[in-house]
C-alpha cells in the first residue's frame, strides 16, 4: 500500500505514545525522492534513526510466511530488526557492517586482477617500503588493504554475531511457548543459528552455545583467511554474519521443506508472538501488536487461538478485508476504510 496519497507530495504519520507514564508525540514526514524527517515532541531530530525505540511495535503480515519458507535473508532481517527493537544502538552496528561489506566486496572486485597474481591470496614481503616503487608492491598493497577490511569486518561482524546469538538464546523459550499455544500441537519448535564460520568456535555455535565476542572475532578472521582464495576468485565476501541463517525446526525435522502449510503459518506466527513476548519481558511494557490482513490466511482453529492469545495485549491493531474473518471474541473499536476515508463503524 503506498503511504503517500496519489497526487500529494508528502505524507505525515503522527502518533501519541505513552511510555513510562509520559506522553510524547512522534511525527514522521515521508517525502518521496527526498529525505524523510522525524520529529519528537515537535522538535526535529537530526537523524531519523534517533526516533527508534520511542514506540515499539510487532507486525505480523502475510509476507511473514517467507520467514519459514523464504531465503536466509528473511530470517537474518527478522533477527536484526528484533535486535534494533530491543536496543536501538544496533541500528548503527548493522549499518556499519553493511558498509564494511560493500567496501570489502568493492575491493575484491576492483583488485581482482592484482589479487589473482598473489599466491593463494597471501602477501610476500616486497623489497621496497615505498608504495608503487616495486612491481610486486601493487599486489601487496591490494592484499594489505584487504587485510585492513578483514579486520574491520571481524570487529564489527563479531559484535553483530554475538548479539544475534544472545538474542536467539533469549528468544528460544518464547518461541517454543508461542508455537505450542498457536498450533495446539505436541511437536516443539526450535530455532538454531547456522553460521558461515568454520572451526571449533563454529562447532560451539552449532551446539547452541554463545562464545565470547573476542572468540567470534578470531573465528571470523581465521575463516576469512581460509576462504580468501575462493573470495578472490569469486569477488565476494563468503564469510560473516551476512551469510548466516536460522534453521527453524519442528521436532527433529527442518521446517523448510518438511512443515505443512498450516505448520508454516503457525511457525511464522510463533516467531512474531515470541518476539512480542521477548520485548514485553525486556521493556516491561507491551509493544503495539499489528496483525495486518492475517486472519484471512489462518484456518478456524488458528484464528480462535490467536484471538485468545492477543486478548491480554495492551493494544492490538487488526486490519481485515472481510469483517467476518476476525473472530467475534475480539472486541474493540472498528473503523471502515473506504476510498481513503476512515470512519467509525
Amino acid at each position, binding site marked *: 500500500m503506498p503511504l503517500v496519497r496519489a497526487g500529494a507530495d508528502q505524507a505525515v504519520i503522527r502518533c501519541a505514545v505513552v511510555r513510562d507514564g509520559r506522553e510524547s508525540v512522534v511525527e514522521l514526514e515521508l517525502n518521496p525522492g527526498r529525505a524523510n524527517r522525524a520529529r519528537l515532541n515537535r522538535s526535529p531530530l537530526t537523524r531519523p534513526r534517533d526516533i527508534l525505540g520511542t514506540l515499539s511495535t510487532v507486525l505480523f503480515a502475510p509476507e511473514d510466511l517467507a520467514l519459514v519458507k523464504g531465503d536466509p535473508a528473511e530470517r537474518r532481517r527478522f533477527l536484526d530488526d528484533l535486535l534494533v527493537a530491543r536496543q536501538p544502538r544496533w541500528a548503527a552496528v548493522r549499518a556499519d557492517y553493511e558498509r564494511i561489506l*560493500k567496501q570489502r566486496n568493492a*575491493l575484491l572486485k576492483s583488485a581482482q586482477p592484482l589479487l589473482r597474481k598473489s599466491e593463494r591470496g597471501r602477501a610476500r614481503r616486497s623489497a621496497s617500503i615505498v*608504495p608503487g616503487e616495486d612491481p610486486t608492491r601493487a599486489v601487496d598493497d591490494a592484499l594489505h588493504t584487504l587485510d*585492513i577490511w578483514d579486520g574491520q569486518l571481524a570487529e564489527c561482524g563479531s559484535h553483530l554475531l554475538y548479539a544475534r546469538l544472545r538474542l536467539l538464546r533469549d528468544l528460544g523459550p518464547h518461541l517454543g511457548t508461542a508455537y505450542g499455544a498457536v498450533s495446539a500441537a505436541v511437536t516443539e519448535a526450535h530455532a538454531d543459528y547456522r553460521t558461515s564460520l568454520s572451526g571449533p568456535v563454529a562447532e560451539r555455535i552449532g551446539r547452541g552455545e554463545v562464545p565470547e565476542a573476542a572468540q567470534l572475532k578470531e573465528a571470523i578472521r581465521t575463516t576469512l583467511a581460509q576462504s580468501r582464495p575462493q573470495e578472490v576468485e569469486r569477488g565476494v565476501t563468503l564469510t560473516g554474519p551476512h551469510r548466516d541463517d536460522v534453521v527453524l525446526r519442528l521436532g527433529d525435522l527442518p521446517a523448510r521443506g518438511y512443515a505443512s502449510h498450516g505448520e508454516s503459518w503457525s511457525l511464522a506466527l510463533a516467531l512474531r508472538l515470541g518476539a512480542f513476548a521477548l520485548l514485553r519481558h525486556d521493556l516491561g511494557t507491551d509493544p503495539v501488536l499489528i496483525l495486518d490482513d492475517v486472519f484471512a490466511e489462518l484456518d478456524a482453529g488458528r484464528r480462535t487461538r490467536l484471538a485468545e492469545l492477543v486478548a491480554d495485549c495492551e493494544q492490538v491493531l487488526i486490519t481485515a478485508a472481510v469483517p467476518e474473518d476476525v473472530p467475534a471474541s475480539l472486541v474493540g473499536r472498528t473503523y471502515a476504510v473506504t476510498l481513503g476515508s476512515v470512519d467509525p463503524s
Partner: protein
Amino acid sequence: MYEGAVQDLIDELGRLPGVGPKSAQRIAFHLLQADSDDVDRLVTALTEVKARVRFCTVCGNVAEAELCRICADPRRDPSLICVVEEPKDVVAIERTREFKGRYHVLGGAISPMDGVGPNDLRIKELMTRLLGGTVEEVIIATDPNLEGEATAAYLSKYLRELHVRVTRLASGLPVGGDLEYADEVTLGRAFEGRRLIDA
C-alpha cells in the same frame, strides 16, 4: 528547461558538490540579476583560483607557491607530522593553534566503493618524507568513520616498520556537550580512551 546560456549555467552549477537542481536554478537567476561588477569579481576569483593555487610539493596542502605557508615556515617543528585527509582538515586543526608541527594531506581516505585505493592517496609521498629521518612522530588525524579508520590502520601498518612514533587523535565526547546526548559509539570510545586524572 531554459534557453541556451541560462540552462548551461544551471547545469554547470548543478555539478558542484551540495548543489541540487533547485539551488542551481536559484543561483543562476541570482547571478542573472546581479551587477556586472559582482559577477566579474566572481569570474576573477574562479580564474585566479585555477591559475594561482597549486598543491604544496611536500605536504599536498593548497599553496600559492611551491611550498605551502606551513611547510615554508621555519618555526614549525619538522619532527612532527600530522596526517589528514583534506586541506580543510588542516584549516580545522590550525584553528586550534595547538599544533606546531607540519602536515601531510592524503587527498582522501581508502574507499574501494569510490575506487580510492592506497595508490590514489599521497601515501608514497609520506613514506618518502619519513625516510629522511627527521620525523619522530606521525599523528594520524583521518576522520573517525569507517574509511578514515581503515586508512589509519593501513598507515600504521607501514609506519610501524619505519620505527617512528605513530599516534591517532583521540575520539570521544565533544567539549561543551551533554553526556546524555552522546551516541553509544562515541561514549564507548570515550570509555576506551579514558585517562588518569593527575593528582
